[in-house]
């Protein structure tokens, strides 16, 4: 009987293997949780093999990892053409059906996506120093992912998009600009029919944390990589005690965060976009505020 549940992908796993066969996390890693509850997502070990269906994928490299697929007959993955590294001539590649193209565009993916059908080999990689994150999804399980973090997914994983509803407006009447600090839309991936595998790529290192019911935390909006659908997110504006900057009329000394509230799992990456310039915020989505 298998009693081991991988602490990273949360799926029942094989305790006798050196790495979790579903997500590649080391099985024997010591519990490395910071005092505040963050766990560093361990990089998938070089040449770790992940199984899905009759196929498998091997993760090679540690700086900019490569996902090398060995696809079985009748199995396929889909991806954006710019992550394709190499492919066997035997691997059949074709563009995805244009059905669902609107969703793809709204989800921040290219309109034209590629499918690779087995049997054959194909390798994919992003182009930033960072980590590949494997998220095995059980039948019916779904997860929210920040746009542009998607690397590839097995054919049975359906994608959809959702509006993040985190925005604010700066500028005057004639020249207003709407900012979406965590992207305008997010990707939602759901496994249909059977379990599937979703691979993401995040620049820098990745840290995960479990939030309890009602527990909340303030994080940089662009650092969020993925979250359980049960985690709620909204804008949070903080105005530090300023010392003499108020005389600048157009200057707004503030920090833009998102407040994430449990229950559920969140993952952040250590590289994130610099916050926008501190122009006065004229309007914004639902937000909590705090003035120190």
């Amino acid at each position, binding site marked *: 009987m298998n009693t081991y549940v991988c602490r990273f992908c949360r799926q029942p796993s094989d305790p006798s293997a050196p790495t979790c066969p579903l997500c590649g996390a080391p099985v024997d890693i010591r519990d*490395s949780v*910071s*005092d*505040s509850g*963050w766990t*560093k997502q361990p*990089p998938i070990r070089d040449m770790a093999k992940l199984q899905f269906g009759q196929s498998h994928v091997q993760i090679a490299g540690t*700086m900019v990892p490569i996902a090398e697929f060995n696809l079985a007959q009748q199995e396929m993955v889909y991806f954006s053409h710019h992550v394709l590294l190499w492919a066997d001539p035997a691997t059949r590649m074709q563009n995805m059906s244009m059905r669902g193209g609107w969703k793809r565009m709204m989800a921040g993916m290219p309109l034209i996506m590629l499918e690779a059908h087995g049997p054959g080999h194909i390798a994919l990689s992003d182009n930033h*120093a*960072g*980590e590949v994150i494997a998220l095995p999804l059980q039948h019916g399980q779904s997860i929210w992912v920040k746009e542009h973090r998607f690397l590839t997914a097995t054919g049975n994983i359906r994608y959809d998009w959702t509006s993040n509803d985190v925005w604010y407006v700066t500028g005057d009447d004639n020249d207003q600009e709407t900012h979406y600090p965590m992207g305008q839309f997010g990707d939602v991936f759901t496994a249909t029919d059977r379990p599937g595998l979703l691979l993401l790529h995040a*620049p*820098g*290192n990745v*840290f995960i944390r479990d939030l309890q019911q009602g527990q*909340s*935390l*303030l*994080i*940089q909006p662009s*650092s969020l990589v993925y979250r359980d659908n049960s985690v709620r997110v909204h804008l949070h504006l*903080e105005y*530090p*005690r*300023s*010392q*003499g*900057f108020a005389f600048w009329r157009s200057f707004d*000394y503030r*920090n833009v*965060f998102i*407040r994430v509230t449990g229950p559920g799992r969140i993952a*952040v990456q*250590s*590289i*994130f*976009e*610099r*916050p926008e310039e501190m122009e006065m915020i004229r309007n914004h989505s639902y937000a909590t505020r*705090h003035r*120190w």
Partner: protein
Amino acid sequence: MTELRFSGSTCQVEGELVPVAEIALAPQDGVYFEHHVLLWKDESVPLSSLKTSGPRRSLGGMPHIVSVANGPGRIAFSRDAAGELVVLPLHPGMELDVREHAFLLASHSIQYSFVRIKGLANALHGGNGMWMDRFVTSQQPGLLILHGNGNVLQRTLGAGEKILVEPGAFLYKDSSVTLQTQQIQLKTGMLGHHNMYLAEMTGPGRVGIQSMYVHHHSGE
């Protein structure tokens, strides 16, 4: 995971590509930082600003606001490039000069100022910009954490000992180390003369360099 202590607070550093410094601030402690390096924080951690001569800093290309976070509570920081965190515990009476935009955070007991790089040649060809951050401890020790791009190496120079450094690679130095720009003329026959500029560091003191940098263009 590496754990450090300063005053009543602790700092944990985790990550190999872009490390994160997570601080558990004690009630009487604080840290200051450029606001865009803040990764996450507890809601209870108050933020304020450090008084600096803002417009002058802005003209020098440095952030004109330096934020302050006070305890108790937890807060975490990271920069936006692959590299290493350099942890520099400063004893009382130390002065350290740091390349602009390289400091991640400093504890409240460290005084912060900035110095203009003297000499037109140094400012124009030194590759460090016009300003350097200066961190000074008086009576209390403190903790300074820098972010170096790539790997970071340190060398201790004896009195009068010199080293030539690619200006983009300079990361930090003791204030006792002087910096001068050296022009090296390269003769390339029919193609004329080319000048290369290097930063000449003269001891005594420590010099820190980073292995990943934007190469400083050589002029003709």
